[in-house]
């Protein structure tokens, strides 16, 4: 899976050069609703709840600390 994931990211990086917008076309992308996580605490609480109740966690990034809830 490691090799597969790195391969995907490499292919995406190569293919990414044909995508994108000009600086003056970022109006919609800059809206709060268009952020990866538009509501910080929605995501924070969800991560905490599901970390406590499921065997899987993580994926969105690193950091944030641990707890004894799992």
């Amino acid at each position, binding site marked *: 899976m490691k090799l597969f994931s790195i391969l995907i990211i490499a292919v995406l990086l190569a293919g990414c050069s044909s995508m994108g917008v000009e600086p003056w076309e970022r109006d919609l992308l800059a809206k709060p609703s268009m952020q990866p996580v538009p509501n910080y605490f929605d995501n*924070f609480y969800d991560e905490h709840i599901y970390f406590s109740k499921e065997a899987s966690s993580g994926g969105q990034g690193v950091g944030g600390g641990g707890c004894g809830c799992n």
Partner: protein
Amino acid sequence: MQLKKISSSLSVASCTLLQVSNPAAQTNDWNIDSSFLVYSESDGRVSAFEPAVRSEIDLGDDEFINFQVVVDALTGATPNGAHKSTVAQTFTNPSGNGTYTVAPGEFPLSQTFRDTRVAITGEWDKPINRLSSVLLGASVSSEVDYTSLGLSATYEHDFNNKNTTLATGLALTSDLIFPIGGVPLGLNPMRRGGSDQQRVGSDDTKTTVDFMVGVTQIVNRKTFFQINYTYGTSSGYQNDYNNVLTVLDPTTNQPLVGGWLDANDLPYLFEQRPDSRTRNILFFRGVHHLTEDVINVSYRLFTDDWGINSHTLDFRYRYQLTSKQYLQPHIRYYTQTKADFYRHDLVQGTDIDNAGKVNVQYASSDYRLGAFDSTTLGLSYGINITRNSEFTIRGEMMQQKIDNSEVPRPGEETPDLTALIFQMGYSFVW
């Protein structure tokens, strides 16, 4: 809730290419984000009340510092790992002093507990140059039987006219576990309350390292996506010290009586998990702007060397009621396979010989390591009260459906779980 700046956030690879920078700014504004969560499980199980506040200071030139404080007040009862039986079952409290008895046919839950956790985190988001930045984080979390310390660093670099961001991050978490009453010896019997509990120390440790690499790509004016790969390892004490497994007498189908158990042994063995775990996670998120509404969808593939494979699909549709108000339905679906060492119980004569020697290296009956599906449905409402303040409210219901297909006898099934989630938040610039 993002106000003036699209902030990076804990546990989320931020995405500088979506930010609108203002290089000359020196604002010193404080973005305050406050929220509280009420979480309540059915059948008198866990309830949590969790207020939190996060303040982000805008230092100008795209540099930010943020601090967060979360208090997590928990109460309720949790499954102790034993399964239902046709006879009454008596267990010892974690401290080793008291006991509690579960009636025949009842699902064994540990006695009501209370715990309060306090977690403090801080982050420093520092641009290095026009195309790259670093996010440094530190965290501390403390509760009655657990302390966690964490450090993290994420580096981001923009390419392709700032349409592509490559992020890479490393996090180290060091945990100290102080089981109430001492550390029980895995795969050894729970002892009667008040007798010698035969604990093997007062504390133990766990270390977790996570490494992530990811890419965020703007596709066009209305669409971007994000793909992350995370490799994580944990080593050290990974047991839930409150969890036991039933030792089953196959002739009576009831917890073992007598045999190799001595007078102070109960027919329940403390669980034992491997002391290392390796995780591989692939995460995808896509965000698309319709005419006014926004679709935010994510998928996570998780696999580890404990045998757990899971899929998580998350879908949010932000329906813009007016320019200042929105409704957001949310659907989340999760499914996982069981860990290789997940066991319904340990059978006398097969898993344990007549002298009490346990023939398995690892075993746990924690239902969270078993196979189950979980579905969450929710709805959020948000309103911008002023230009720089927002109020949000959210209600959700989570349902875990446990896979009992391998339970050998009817009546011993692990019950499904329903939980209600209510959250309210207010954010403003100060």
